[in-house]
Structure formats: structure tokens, C-alpha cells
């Protein structure tokens, strides 16, 4: 276990709690999916886990140490956050974006040196974008940007990467490309927490799923155990079918299909 949340409760100033007693455990090499409706608390949980927000109650520990006892740079060397695809104000090159991942390893007055460039180029190579190094980040496709941001997370050299809806705005091909790389990196020992609106991707790639509803954990467990028709219907307030594959004794869930209400 490297990252653990115990009974995390969080509320924005004087409001209703957005997170209520959320617990999770992330192991090395694990891909953990956060699923649930918009506003169920996924983003807030990610921010708590990345150190951006401090829970009102409960505890988050990293390698057994309270997350908030880490200095910002020290924490950032362990946990990285891969934001949703964005367009920065300035047309940095892909390599310049990836290099920013080196920030927690450099002093305030430092700027990347030889080693950092090597790490950045390596990271780009491992997401298959080495030839894109000098392209402006603002001019590549959404899928490529997502990969660049993953490369930045790699250059950050942390143990845990939090991904905020990596499948948003991506076509099926690019979703698969991104998730294949995530799966490969997890195989190399990196841990991921992925917030997502794609249960099918969770079925395909997740080791563990946290199904959330209105700030609570509705269900947590292996994808086959949590992504069942009754739980999904509850979590998303709809009727859903789960399509299984394989023989009866080895049934593997392959897809979640919401039912059409009127026809």
C-alpha cells in the first residue's frame, strides 16, 4: 500500500459535505477507477489526494506518512496529477510541457539541465511521441495532448499519477491508445487513480473500482464485483444492463449498456 485514504470528509466553507467518509487503498502498480455521476465528488477526492485540498476529517497517508506533512515539492515528487486536456495561453513545445514535470525536482531558481532533458525525452519516448518534441503543444490533437500530459507525469517521476477524465473528448482509438499506455506503465509499477465517465474502460483496465454517489462510496472492489447492473443503476440513476462474455463459470463483464427509456 502506498496511498491510503481513511474516512475522508470534506466540505467547502460552511457547506454540505462533498465527501463523506471516503476510504480507499492504492497499491503499487494498481489502476484504480473512480466512477460516478457528475458532482458525486470524484474531482474533490482527486484534489484531496493530490494535496490541493485538505480534508476536514479523516486522513490521507502516503507511504504511511500523513500527506499534509509533506512539503509541496516533496509531495509532488510522489504524486502527480494529469489534468484534463487544456490549451495553455502560450504555444509551448511538447518538450517544454513535459519538462515542467521536473519542477518538483528543481529549486525555485533552478531550470532544467542536461539530466532533466534526458528524462523528458525518455518520457516522451515511452508514450511514443519522441518525434513530437518540438511541435507546439497547442497544435497537436487531443489524444496526443493527453499522452504529452502523461509523459509530463512520467517526467515528474512519481509513484502515483492521478488522471482527471483521461477519456473525455477522445475518440475510441485515442482512448484505447491512452489506456494501453496506462496499463503498460502500471505493469512497470506505477499506480494510477483514474476518474472517468467510461465504465467500459474500467471493465477493461481497472484493478479496483470506487463507485461513488453523492459524496459516498457506494461500492468498492474489483470491476466485476462493483460494475453490476443493480449497483450501476443505483449510482447513475438509470436502468443498465451488463453484457458478459465467456462460459458460465468464467463469465467476464465486457460492457455496460444503459437502457433506453422510451421507444
Amino acid at each position, binding site marked *: 500500500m502506498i496511498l491510503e485514504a481513511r474516512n475522508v470528509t470534506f466540505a467547502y466553507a460552511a457547506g454540505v459535505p462533498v465527501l463523506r467518509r471516503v476510504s480507499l487503498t492504492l497499491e503499487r502498480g494498481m489502476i484504480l477507477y473512480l466512477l460516478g455521476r457528475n458532482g458525486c465528488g470524484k474531482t474533490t477526492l482527486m484534489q484531496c489526494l493530490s494535496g490541493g485540498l485538505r480534508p476536514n476529517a479523516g486522513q490521507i497517508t502516503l507511504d504511511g506518512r500523513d500527506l499534509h506533512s509533506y512539503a509541496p515539492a516533496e509531495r509532488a515528487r510522489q504524486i502527480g496529477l494529469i489534468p484534463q486536456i487544456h490549451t495553455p495561453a502560450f504555444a509551448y513545445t511538447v518538450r517544454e510541457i513535459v519538462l515542467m514535470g521536473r519542477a518538483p525536482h528543481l529549486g525555485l531558481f533552478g531550470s532544467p539541465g542536461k539530466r532533466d532533458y534526458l528524462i523528458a525525452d525518455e518520457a516522451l519516448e515511452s508514450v511514443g511521441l519522441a518525434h513530437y518534441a*518540438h511541435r507546439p503543444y497547442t497544435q497537436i490533437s487531443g489524444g496526443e495532448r493527453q499522452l504529452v500530459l502523461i509523459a509530463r507525469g512520467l517526467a515528474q517521476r512519481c509513484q502515483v499519477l492521478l488522471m482527471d477524465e483521461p477519456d473525455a473528448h477522445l475518440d475510441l482509438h485515442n482512448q484505447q491508445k491512452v489506456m494501453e499506455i496506462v496499463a503498460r506503465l502500471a505493469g512497470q509499477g506505477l499506480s494510477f487513480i483514474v476518474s472517468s465517465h467510461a465504465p467500459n474502460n474500467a471493465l477493461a483496465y481497472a484493478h479496483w473500482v470506487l463507485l461513488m454517489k453523492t459524496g459516498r462510496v457506494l461500492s468498492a472492489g474489483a470491476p466485476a464485483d462493483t460494475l453490476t447492473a443493480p449497483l450501476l443503476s443505483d449510482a447513475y440513476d438509470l436502468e443498465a444492463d451488463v453484457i458478459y462474455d465467456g462460459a458460465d463459470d468464467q463469465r467476464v463483464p465486457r460492457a455496460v449498456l444503459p437502457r433506453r427509456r422510451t421507444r
Partner: protein
Amino acid sequence: MRVVTLRRLWQGADVQVSGRDVLYVVLLLLPFALIVLSLMLGLYSISVENVGRALLSSIAPAMAESVPQTELTLVLRIRLPRVLSAALIGAALASTGVAFQGIFKNPLVDSNLLGVTSGAGFGAALALLLGGTAALVQGFAFGFGLLAVSLAYVGSRLYSTAPMIVLTLMGILIGSFFGSMTSLIKYVADPLNTLPAITFWLLGGLTGVTWSSVPSLAVITLVGGAFLWLVRWRLNILSLGDAEAVTLGMNPNRLKLIIIVCATLMTAAAVAVGGVIGWIGLVIPHAGRILVGPDHKRLIPVSLALGASFLLAIDNLSRALLPTEVPLGVLTGLVGVPLLILLLRRNQTGW
């Protein structure tokens, strides 16, 4: 443009230097060449040899023996402080423009965003109305420049949410307030006496610069410029927004505050000496991005150099072309706009 990656360069093999690297070095050396050239230029013609002798005489007094006193005075007391001031002011305005554009994630702002120039303009106008000396005008300009930004900052602290947006809004409000106050002063100023002085100051100019204005300007610009140089790479990260800066292990608000203080001091010092010289803080950052790209690691050094060079060149036009001084604020626009349009043709990537 890019001939070889830096990685190959370090590995020592195949040492080729890209056009961009050459350009970078040339840009950094440009102001030093221009300073030397500017010292040779002026309405009063002084031979290159005598300019050289005059300059060297500060180290080796014997060099001055064959140089007429008039030429010594002109080179050492008139041209040198003015040329240095132009370089410092240009560097300050351009680099603070880059810093503000970076931290406010907006390529269309400059260091006047928080009202420093408007405050300084009001301070100068007030000092001129009171019949103040050059020193008083400078002091008032500097003081009111800082006051304006402080008011904007204090005003923004009254709201706990979205501090940067509120700070920007406060800056704009305080800026317009001081702008109106300046108009009010112009309204009541003696048309024969004070009004032309205020108008000329507001358009910017280095006509009256002597050594007395250089030390404070130099110290503030060099210290501030050095700080911006040191944190320049962090500006890349700040320009992505607070959330990402936090996940990359930074305290963005603290660093931004230090940069704002630093840029405000630099701008106020520059405006106090040179008046309101528009354009540089907006145009030079863009020119720099077109030439070396948006990476602040190179953009800050280049904007320092390019700002210095641009204002040196403009000031040379102002002081050596016609018997009458043309306000710098007029020339920066007249020369800057065509120059930027020319550079824009090279820009293929957007900002």
C-alpha cells in the same frame, strides 16, 4: 530553424548549432553593441576616437587629454546616463511585460495591468502641478505607482474568492481612477506652464536624464531583472494556472506576489525616470516569442535584451534625428507597430 537537438549537442557528437541558438546569442549581445553605437550618435558630432577616449578616461584619465571639454561632458554626462537609462527602462518594461503576461496567463497585458503606470502618471502630474523639481516628480511618480498597485492588492484581499481575477479587476479600477485624477489635474493645470509639462511627461521622454536618475533606476532594474531571470523557468508553470502549479509542487500565490512586487518596483522606477513609454511591455514580449518561442527560459533574457535594444534605438531617433525631441511614446508606436506586423509574418504557431 532547428538543425539539431540539444541532446546531441551535449553528447558532443555532431556539434551543430541551430539558427535559433545563433539568434538567441545575437539577441543577447545586441544591447551591448547598441549601447556602444548609441554613444557615438548625437546631434553634436564627436569622432569615434574621442568617444572612445572619453569613455576610457574614467579609468585612465590620461586618455582625456586631447578631447575637448565639451565632448567629454557630452559623452560622459549627457549621452552615457541617457543611453544607460534607455537600456535599463527598455529592459525593465519588456521583462515585466513578459512576467505579467505569464502570471496572468494573458498575452494582451503588460505591467500596467495593476495600475502602476497610471498611478505614476498621476504622481508626476501632481508634482508638476505643485511646481516640483525633477527629483520630486520622480519621487512622486515612483511613490504613487507603488500606491496604486498596493491599493489594488489591498482591495483584492477584501474578497476571498478568485483573488487573481479580483486583483486584475481592482488593478483596472485603480488604474482608471488614477487616470481620471490625472485628467482632473490636466483640467486645472495652467495651460501655459504646467499643462505642456504634464502632457510631455505622459508621452514619455529621456530629455532631462542625468546621472542623478541612474543609480536608483539601475539598482532596481538590475536586482529585479536578476530575480525575474532566476525564476524565469517557473513562469512557464505559473502560466498554466494555479491548479497545475500546485500539483507540480509550487506555491503559486507566493511566487506570483513576489513577481508582482518585483515588476511593480521595476515599472515604477522606469516610469519615474522616463515617463509613460507605452507599447514596449506589450510588443517586445510578442516579438521575443516570435523570435525564440514562448519558453520563458529564453524569453526573459531575450525580452530584457530586446527591450533594451528597442528603446535604445527609439531614443536614438528621438535625440539624434531632429533638433526637437520627439516624445518616446509617439515613436514607440510609430516604429513598433510596423515592426511587429513584420515579425508577425514569421509567426506560425500563435502565442
